[in-house]
């Protein structure tokens, strides 16, 4: 078995992109105090929205726009059910993901007559890959960093944007204060509901970008259940990083790398594919265990130090 290390690293970045967006989406609502599992379904809907938009508007950018729009709309649906309808957030998200799984297949069937993929019926559009001028000529680094999808670079900028939004702007401060202590925030005149909606709005944009990447960059069509737990993995990534945007991106990169290893092995070895399919999920569970133990130990040390 031979592995091309450069190609592997480039592939890891590619695999990590939808996870970074998913993590950022989950992060936005997390800071407003909401554990949003609906990210999974939102990404799935956006992936379908993007290819549908691109097909009917006839352009890549139309697809990108529709993908983001779908993300925002689905986010607002969850926000409405939870914030205005006062439904338990877990139940809302489980119900929404369930509806998204079947609903996307249903809509795909109505539009194309197919139940598994849109590749036959819809023209495929791809978000362009970008070659960064000077960097692309650096020997090894160029092949890894340059030539990725435009959305991958958007993901990098988004990490910075989210950090800036949360730490340096008034909206960010309000979102965090609502997440830390909703009653205190309410008492100084911040509307918890309004801030909740705003955080879901941002969450929707990132979920939309994640979905668009999957159906217009990773592959160029929509496939039944194509998100395959990436929303949950992104959610766990930001949980492990304790809600830090940069940390979430790094953890996502790690998960991207494990997925990349599994995919490479699938094509090169006779190892049962079932076990390789498990890798991203097992990696997530193991990572959750490790970070939890680390956090608990840290907490214990702080408590002992306090005595």
């Amino acid at each position, binding site marked *: 078995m031979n592995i091309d290390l450069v190609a592997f690293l480039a592939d890891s970045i590619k695999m990590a992109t939808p996870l970074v967006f998913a993590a950022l989406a989950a992060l936005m609502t997390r800071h407003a105090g909401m*554990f949003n*599992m609906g990210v999974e379904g939102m990404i799935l809907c956006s992936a379908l929205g993007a290819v549908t938009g691109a097909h009917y508007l006839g352009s890549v950018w139309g697809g990108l726009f529709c993908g983001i729009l779908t993300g925002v709309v689905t986010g607002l649906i969850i926000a409405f*059910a939870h914030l*205005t*309808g*006062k*439904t*338990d957030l*877990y*139940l*809302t998200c*489980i*119900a*929404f993901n*369930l*509806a*998204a*799984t*079947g*609903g996307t*297949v*249903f809509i795909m*069937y*109505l539009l194309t007559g197919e*139940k598994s993929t849109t590749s036959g019926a819809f023209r495929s559009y791809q978000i362009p890959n970008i070659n960064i001028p000077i960097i692309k000529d650096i020997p090894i680094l160029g092949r890894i960093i340059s030539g990725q999808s435009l959305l991958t670079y958007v993901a990098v900028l988004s990490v910075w944007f989210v950090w800036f939004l949360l730490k340096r702007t008034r909206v960010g401060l309000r979102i965090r204060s609502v997440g830390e202590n909703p009653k205190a925030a309410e008492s100084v005149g911040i509307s918890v509901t309004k801030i909740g909606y705003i955080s879901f709005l941002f969450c929707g944009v990132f979920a939309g970008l994640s979905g668009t990447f999957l159906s217009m960059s990773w592959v160029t069509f929509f496939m039944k259940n194509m998100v395959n*737990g990436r929303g*949950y*993995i992104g*959610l*766990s990534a930001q*949980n492990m990083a304790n809600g830090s945007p940069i940390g979430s991106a790094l953890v996502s990169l790690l998960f991207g790398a494990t997925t990349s290893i599994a995919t490479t092995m699938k094509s090169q070895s006779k190892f*049962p594919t*079932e*076990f390789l*399919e*498990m890798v991203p*999920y*097992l990696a*997530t*569970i193991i990572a*959750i*265990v490790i970070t*939890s*133990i680390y*956090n*608990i130990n840290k907490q214990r040390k702080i408590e002992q130090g306090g005595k």
Partner: protein
Amino acid sequence: MNKTQRIEAIMEVVRILAGMAIAYLVALLILIAFSNDPVFIVKQFILGPFSSPRRIGSIINLAVPFTLCGLSMCFMYAVNKFNLIGESIFMLSGCIITFIGLKIGANMPAVILVPLLLLIGAAIGAALSFIPAIMDRKLNANVVVVSLMLNAVITQLAIYILRYFMKDPGISFIGSHETHAAMQLPTILGKMRVGSGVIIALIFVAVISIIFFKTSFGWKMRIVGSNPKFATAVGLSTLGISFAAQLAGGALAGVAGATEIMNSYKRFQWTASTGHGFDGLLVAVLAKKNPILVPFGALFLAYIRIGADVVNTSGDIPNEFISVIQGIIILLVAAESFLSGFKNKLIYRSVQAEKAGRKDK
């Protein structure tokens, strides 16, 4: 029960029925909007499930796993832990009891084999739901995320066992060898061809109802779920009780998987997750965590599922739309503010009337 409580209880029922009715109407609207022959399709959807004794029987057969999974989720939901591991327990339990049944069941009478396999299914379920439960308790890891990740892993494990250890090379699809007659539950009720798994389901409904409402464990569990602070304050072991409830829920999901294989299949042939865990959650939500009401929720779900299947085969609407309807039902029934204005108005009015009555005296 005072007047306010009575209104609350009645409104709870009204809310559930209204939620089901609205979701059902949405389903009809979808059919009307997207079908080329709406009248025929709507008629098929509503009456199709009752059109032959065979189809009525299949509603009941479908309701059997829904009931057992609903009971399983009642335990999880009762202690407010959305441990969704039941989804994959159902599949792995079905897989392993088929494997064991094929190995040991050749000369065993059904009276011994069936309970033995149910017990094995329950053990598998309890063992698997132990993982997210212990991670939730000791590591403070989110039980929903952990159970969903584990679902993906366990589903693949079941497929692996099927493909490498159980596959019957003589058939055109991926499936195990045919199971022995002793582990195929006989059908009852003549033409309807209802599997006798329905008896297993009803026994469990009775037993779980007794546990919920007549034992101290059931009482403690309901306290822990409805008011954890109070439970801690009166000295209940909140963690222990929610842990035990999750194990019981897992065991029931295992029983559900085992029953489904023995009731409706001659081979183990699932190559993808079956969705029963989520169906169980829907049933538990519809039944408001009350085990006695679970079979009714299960029958309703089975009815709309069979309706969707009829529409799928006889018309142009794919049956996936039913999962959208399921989502809407969960949202409406679980939404606290759905019809709450109306309820508050009723309570307000009754209190006002009572006051007026007192003044008159």
